[in-house]
């Protein structure tokens, strides 16, 4: 059927450009533009203003399937294990989630399992102090799995609802660091019987296509149960969550939009797809 009306090749090219610039990736962007073409041929696009709306709906539909907030229930202490590559915002996000849960009436305990990076323990300790929350920590250089073990033991003894474990940044390509994380997970599983109840991978919105590889590698090695996307207060759109959602179907729990404790929001497919096309 001949394409007539307001949607021309130029507009389609601009849309593809906007999607690529948002880090959706070439493959996903091309495929979304194809879907728009189909919608157009079927007559679903009568008005140029419809283009953005239809695209938002297509994207929203992809993301709706991974809009599943974290439910703290069934287990006590509910154990959240965080992980991610270096500098994405793990420690800050751990503090933010702690604050959100405390505001929700939960008793929270932090585990300082980053025993490697300079002043990582001090950094989390300061956040714990600001929140008036308990923290379990060992000396720098000690075994992170031992800290996880102690944190869970302390949580059970002190009637804590949620344990949130901060870990050292690690590139997904470093097999020894992946093994270290596997060990931490094993220790948690043994100590809690059912944990970790959430394995939360933290992704940085400023990353490009490598984010997909991060999810793939971490998920294959460790089974990730949730994602959080940080630094969405910048100009990066985090479009990689489209291919990530389609490929891995992992729920996106939170998005982070700043450096303060309150800069944590539950993931909304509708809000995200709107912001993506802004």
């Amino acid at each position, binding site marked *: 059927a001949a394409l007539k009306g307001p949607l021309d090749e130029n507009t389609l090219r601009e849309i593809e450009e906007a999607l690529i610039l948002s*880090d959706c990736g*070439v493959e996903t962007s091309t495929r979304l533009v194809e879907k728009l073409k189909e919608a157009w041929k079927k007559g679903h696009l009568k008005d140029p203003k419809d283009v953005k709306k239809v695209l938002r709906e297509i994207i929203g539909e992809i993301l709706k399937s991974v809009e599943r907030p974290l439910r703290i229930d069934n287990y006590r202490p509910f154990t959240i294990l965080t992980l991610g590559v270096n500098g994405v915002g793990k420690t800050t996000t751990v503090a933010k989630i702690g604050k959100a849960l405390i505001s929700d009436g939960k008793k929270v305990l932090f585990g300082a399992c980053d025993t490697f990076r*300079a002043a990582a323990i*001090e950094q989390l300790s*300061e956040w714990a102090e600001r929140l008036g929350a308990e923290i379990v920590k060992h000396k720098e250089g000690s075994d992170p799995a031992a800290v996880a073990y102690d944190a869970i033991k302390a949580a059970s003894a002190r009637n804590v609802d949620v344990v949130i474990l901060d870990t050292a940044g690690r590139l997904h390509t470093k097999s020894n660091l992946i093994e270290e994380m596997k060990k931490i997970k094993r220790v948690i599983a043994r100590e809690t019987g059912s944990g970790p109840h959430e394995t939360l991978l933290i992704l940085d919105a*400023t*990353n*490009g*296509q490598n984010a997909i590889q991060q999810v793939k590698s971490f998920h294959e090695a460790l089974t990730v149960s949730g994602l959080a996307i940080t630094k969405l207060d910048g100009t990066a759109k985090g479009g990689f969550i489209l291919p990530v959602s389609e490929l891995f179907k992992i729920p996106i729990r939170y998005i982070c939009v700043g450096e303060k404790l309150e800069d944590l929001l539950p993931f909304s497919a509708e809000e995200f797809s709107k912001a993506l096309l802004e």
Partner: protein
Amino acid sequence: RLQERFETLFKKIKGQGKLTEENIKEALRDVRIALLEADVNYKVVKDFLEKVKEKAIGQGVLTSITPGQLFIKIVYDELTQLLGSSHSPLNLGGPPPHPIMLIGLQGSGKTTTAGKLALFLRKKGKRPLLISTDTRRPAAMEQLKKISSQIDVPFFSFEGQKDPLSICKDARQYAIKTYSDVLIFDTAGRLHIDEDLLEELVEQKKAISPCEVLLTVDGMTGQDALNIAKAFDEKIGVTGFILTKMDGDARGGAALSIKAVTGKPIKFIGTGEKLDCLEQFHPERIASRILG
């Protein structure tokens, strides 16, 4: 792998003798996809393909190489040339002390890289001083202090001081006391769109008058690298880049974006968390990494 793809694509033009707009069309499309998948910015890719087209069209294919080999060589050479020189040294000209400022987005690797630079310079016989002006991030000063002691370099800051500007001013006095000839200033991470924090950096720069303002860019950065580099360079003025976390498997297309939009050189590559993981920038290596 691109080369193999080109071999297949160009098999049919083997007899034709030269590269034409028509016979390189598909190959250019493949290059475009490779660069976009490598995170090179969309607009930079567009300009790059134009340059390759100019260089390629009309080129006669010698019998000694295949058209596929010729085309990949044109692409590779153009990319290497655009990435800049492999010898952009630190500018430490004039009388000491030489101040260096590290700036960049949150988590891009400034504090760690400050330590790496200090170790690099100490090994070259310099007497660096590490200074933290990060008054915001919890335990930021402690982090740089620990790094300093790991590499046996003096450290200066002012725990409890809220104003980074006064730390900058007091640092010079301290440098004289420690006979330091290079002053490495770590700054707090900030967004390139935060007007107030960019202004704070402008003020810090005035107080420091650095001979180097180095922007750390995470090697995994995507399309946004262009916006980041452009904003920092326009507002603050950047003298060079350090591309960090290149020990992962990110293709590193951000390198081309930041160089193309500012013209400023990439001076170093961060290749690990340890303080000796700082390498010279090699454009040919990054070029083949970007091309995959």
